[in-house]
């Protein structure tokens, strides 16, 4: 059998998904199941004067209405990933607001009813009396009183770098609040077994083992009485599957009412309840010598985290700082971030957290520097990219608890390759031709660094079944990224079989109690290597038993094509099913007291992340009549180390790009002055559709296998998104004849204004749009 890793085999999960046989959160149905509906705060900030549930309770079909007063204690949701030793306990979100509400959409009560319609009718009857208080919507208004974290990351002597500088270039850049909007909203179904006081929880696919720990702690139950079952999901992208208030409330209600309870978030709730992300303002300064070589970098970042700290703690601001220097040679760096709270939906990670923001800001700074120093945009980047000789490159700072050591790679090589491809495709000519016709075409380029494969560990089980199939119980979870297929390919290679012979079960805490879940582009690297390790151990055991059965030395045996055989023969073989039989209790091949079965559990651990990198190039057209931006062409060059399944890597890159396009041009959560969200339907929250997303040209490279894991893979989940804001901003500024842009998303009204500015000979935008003010002229 040819090696499965490296093949673009079709996804194993597609048959079930495309024939309508997937099982999603809302598909789990149980007898006498109740429906929950969350009552949410209609105001952005205030003290709860009273909650009257009388009318709601009186509605026929209503089983229960609960408020914070009914909860066992003042429960708050803990942070999953703690960094920087900053105590955030005072800012954690309660599962139900008890005394104060801090954003529109905050849960204040839950109605449980016989069906979802009655639950929604009753929810409208819950009267929440709130004395409104002052609100803060703009992050800069929160700096004085509501900064909850203020820290620096950096290295080198920044003062001296700036003193020695020939040129210093500064830029203010802001990124709008937006987030992942998975096709499937959140859904939870809890089946409660009163007889054993135990429960099964369906739907929270992402980090089931962690969520179980939190839930067990809050319910004061033994973890083993809770089984989390990750099911199919319509996307997650960082937001879905984290522990939210509902992840406590629904199981708690099931136990309280001793019945199954289901909750499906509707889209209107989703827009105010799901983690928002991205909202940051950067002030960046870069120091150059007279050759255009970077001497030092300073960043002052403000990060709006919304009303509370959720499970991601402050990793988004931390990652922003840590990844800001990117793939460049930055001898001295000082990044400061202030994390503030405002009266908006709390924030968390969204695919490429911190990197989308930081890359967009840094690359605009470089565009501006190029103009200021009179160097080309390409040249300034090529000059400052780390060369392969300089790798590995340690940066004396850490993020997510790991030191930053940029592993192998050839940043300049990939950059040049991307540009060569763009030339080959004729995009420079297209730009020239368009301009000759008077059209506003612009080409933008950016280089970026990604991170992936966050440890410290991941566990996987591999076993052989009675029919000779291979079964994997992994800690990674299926978020739609194709991890089932990838893990099957990796497992298959340990036995020399087709991936068709492998079944992968993800995220079931009964089967795999040690999984760390899928996030941070970690699953192929972490779960993949864990599966590889477990597979090798099982293959060793197959050889061990096979050697007894075939009366040959284990070294002379190979495991391939579904059999264990003497190397070089075809008939001197036993099938995997036969070896399974030989491993059953009572088998004569088992030594006394030797455990039965053919299975292994392997824990893969790793200290350092692996750093993929890439280049994005976009060709856009700006319509001066409307300010509309059309993305005409787009290219992503990406170093993935080892592509387990190249088609899936390309899919990840393309999907990421369309989300990045949304953040660069369309998507933004807007609030009015009273903190009311203005984007609560798809009419106002503009996701890109197939009409807005161009075909993406992908240059996928495997030139620099990761040195930190045996497979050599680097993560591929986020690099399609990371550079999109940067490349599109660069392309738009090129189209408009500006030195740089200063805000994302680039909305048409703003671009029309920018065009007028450019027409007046001003190359640099004077100010940024205030996203929270509806400007009346």
């Amino acid at each position, binding site marked *: 059998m040819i090696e499965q890793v490296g093949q673009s085999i079709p996804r194993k999960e597609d048959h079930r998904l495309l024939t309508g046989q997937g099982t999603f959160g809302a598909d789990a149905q149980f007898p006498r199941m109740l429906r929950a509906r969350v009552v949410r705060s209609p105001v952005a900030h205030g003290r709860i004067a009273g909650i009257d549930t009388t009318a709601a309770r009186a509605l026929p079909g209503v089983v229960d209405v609960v408020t914070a007063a009914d909860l066992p204690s003042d429960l708050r949701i803990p942070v999953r990933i703690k960094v920087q030793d900053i105590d955030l306990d005072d800012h954690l979100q309660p599962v139900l607001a008890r005394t104060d509400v801090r954003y529109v959409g905050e849960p204040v009560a839950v109605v449980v009813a016989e069906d979802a319609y009655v639950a929604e009718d009753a929810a409208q009857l819950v009267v929440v009396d709130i004395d409104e208080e002052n609100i803060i919507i703009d992050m800069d208004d929160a700096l004085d009183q509501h900064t909850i974290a203020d820290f620096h990351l950096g290295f080198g002597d920044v003062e001296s770098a700036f003193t020695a500088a020939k040129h210093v270039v500064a830029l203010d850049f802001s990124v709008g609040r937006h987030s992942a909007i998975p096709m499937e909203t959140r859904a939870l179904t809890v089946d409660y077994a009163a007889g054993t006081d135990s429960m099964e929880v369906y739907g929270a696919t992402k980090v089931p083992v962690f969520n179980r720990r939190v839930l067990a702690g809050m319910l004061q139950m033994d973890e083993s009485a809770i089984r989390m079952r990750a099911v199919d999901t319509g996307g997650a992208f960082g937001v879905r599957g984290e522990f939210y208030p509902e992840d406590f409330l629904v199981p708690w209600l099931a136990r309280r009412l001793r019945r199954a309870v289901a909750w499906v978030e509707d889209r209107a709730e989703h827009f105010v309840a799901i983690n928002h992300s991205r909202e940051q303002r950067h002030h960046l300064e870069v120091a150059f010598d007279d050759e255009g070589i970077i001497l030092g970098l300073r960043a002052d970042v403000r990060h709006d985290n919304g009303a509370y700290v959720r499970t991601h703690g402050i990793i988004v601001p931390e990652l922003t700082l840590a990844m800001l220097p990117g793939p460049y040679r930055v001898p001295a760096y000082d990044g400061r971030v202030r994390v503030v709270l405002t009266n908006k939906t709390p924030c968390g990670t969204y695919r490429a957290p911190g990197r989308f923001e930081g890359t967009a800001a840094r690359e605009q700074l470089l565009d501006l520097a190029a103009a200021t120093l009179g160097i080309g945009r390409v040249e300034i980047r090529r000059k400052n990219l780390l060369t392969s000789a300089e790798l590995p490159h340690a940066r004396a700072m850490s993020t997510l608890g790991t030191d930053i050591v940029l592993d192998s790679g050839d940043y300049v090589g990939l950059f040049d390759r991307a540009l060569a491809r763009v030339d080959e495709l004729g995009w420079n000519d297209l730009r020239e031709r368009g301009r000759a016709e008077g059209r506003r075409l612009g080409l933008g380029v950016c280089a970026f660094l990604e991170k992936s494969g966050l440890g410290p560990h991941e566990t996987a089980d591999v076993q052989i079944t009675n029919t000779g199939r291979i079964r994997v119980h992994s800690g990674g979870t299926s978020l739609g990224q194709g991890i089932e297929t990838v893990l099957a390919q990796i497992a298959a290679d340990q036995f020399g079989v087709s991936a068709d012979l492998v079944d992968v079960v993800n995220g079931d805490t009964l089967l795999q109690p040690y999984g760390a879940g899928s996030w941070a582009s970690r699953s192929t690297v972490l779960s993949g290597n864990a599966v590889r390790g477990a597979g090798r151990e099982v293959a060793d055991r197959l050889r061990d038993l096979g050697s007894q059965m075939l009366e040959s030395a284990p070294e002379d045996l190979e495991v391939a094509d579904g059999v264990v055989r003497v190397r070089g023969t075809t008939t001197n073989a036993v099938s995997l099913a036969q070896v399974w039989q030989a491993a059953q209790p009572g088998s004569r091949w088992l030594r006394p007291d030797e455990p039965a079965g053919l299975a292994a559990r392997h824990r893969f651990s790793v200290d350092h992340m692996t750093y993929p990198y890439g280049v994005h190039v976009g060709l856009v057209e700006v319509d001066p*009549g409307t300010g*509309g931006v059309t993305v005409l062409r787009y290219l992503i060059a990406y170093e993935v180390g080892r592509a387990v399944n190249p088609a899936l890597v390309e899919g990840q890159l393309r999907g990421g790009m369309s989300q990045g396009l949304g953040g660069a041009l369309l998507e933004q959560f807007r609030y009015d002055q009273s903190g009311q969200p*203005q984007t609560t339907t798809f*009419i106002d929250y503009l996701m*890109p559709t197939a*009409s807005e997303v161009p075909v993406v040209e992908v240059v996928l490279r495997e030139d620099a296998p990761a040195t930190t894991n045996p497979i050599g893979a680097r993560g591929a989940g986020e690099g399609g998104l990371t550079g999109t804001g940067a490349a599109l901003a660069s392309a738009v500024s090129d189209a408009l004849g500006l030195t740089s842009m200063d805000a994302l998303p680039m909305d048409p*009204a703003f671009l029309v*204004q920018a065009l007028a500015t450019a027409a007046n000979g001003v190359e640099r935008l004077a100010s940024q749009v205030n996203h929270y003010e*509806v400007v009346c*002229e």
Partner: protein
Amino acid sequence: MKPAPFEYYRAYAPAEVVELLTGLGDEAKVLAGGQSLVPMMNFRLAHPAALVDINAIAELDYVRREGDSLRIGALTRHRTLELSRAPEVQDGFSLLPRAARWIGHYPIRSRGTVGGSIAHADPAAEWCLLARLYDADVVVLGGQGTRVVPSADWFTGFLSTVAATNDVVTEVRFNRPRAFGALTEYARRRGDFAIAAAAVAFDVVDGRCRDVSIVLGAVAGEPLRVTEAEALVEGAEPAAPTWAAAARIAAAAIRPNADTYGGERYRRHLVDTLIQRAFAEAFASDASVSAASGIR
């Protein structure tokens, strides 16, 4: 996003609709294509106590030409017009099929109705613009029988019309056919409601523009005729300077509200652009209309 409880009735004739509505009182509503009403009910922005479904009234689904009038039954789907290549439509009203393509997405066009759009009275709705552009009459059946309301009197502001609660729109009658017409608009994504829209219609007689109508959408509570700009084009040469001058006047004439899609100045800029483009498109597309609106 589940609707509040409501009663459901199905009517089989226009008179039955009026009878049901009269009996059910203020809280009852007609259900046509449901593409505006149902989402509003799901968001609980509308809580009708009862719906009177008119989808079974086949006699309200027709497109007929009578002299200079094109009569469209209230239940005619957007998609029917979009696909129409019939001479009675093409002759003088060829803009209607082209304009219908701007409405939402395919599923919305196959379900939504012309009468529903006119009754709903969204100031961005293509049918509402076209009604004003072609001096349409809205034919209404109510408690006192049938009346014909000129579109100039029909719209009374954002999502509101002169219709009484027991009125049913039975027909929209487009008048004043013209040789040249175009509707163009800008939205940030394909298929979205327009941030601003402009529609123009005119004839050219002896090298001069005649019988000019200019209507703007989404810049006021209802579709807006810009008579100042119409007067400027009337009798002028059909050429770019004329379009530009008209656009400038129209942009100055409007008083748009600022909203999340940009301030007043941006809306004026869009109107300026869209009027010029609508005129240019209309004048370029006279005979080549069917080609331009060919199947996608």
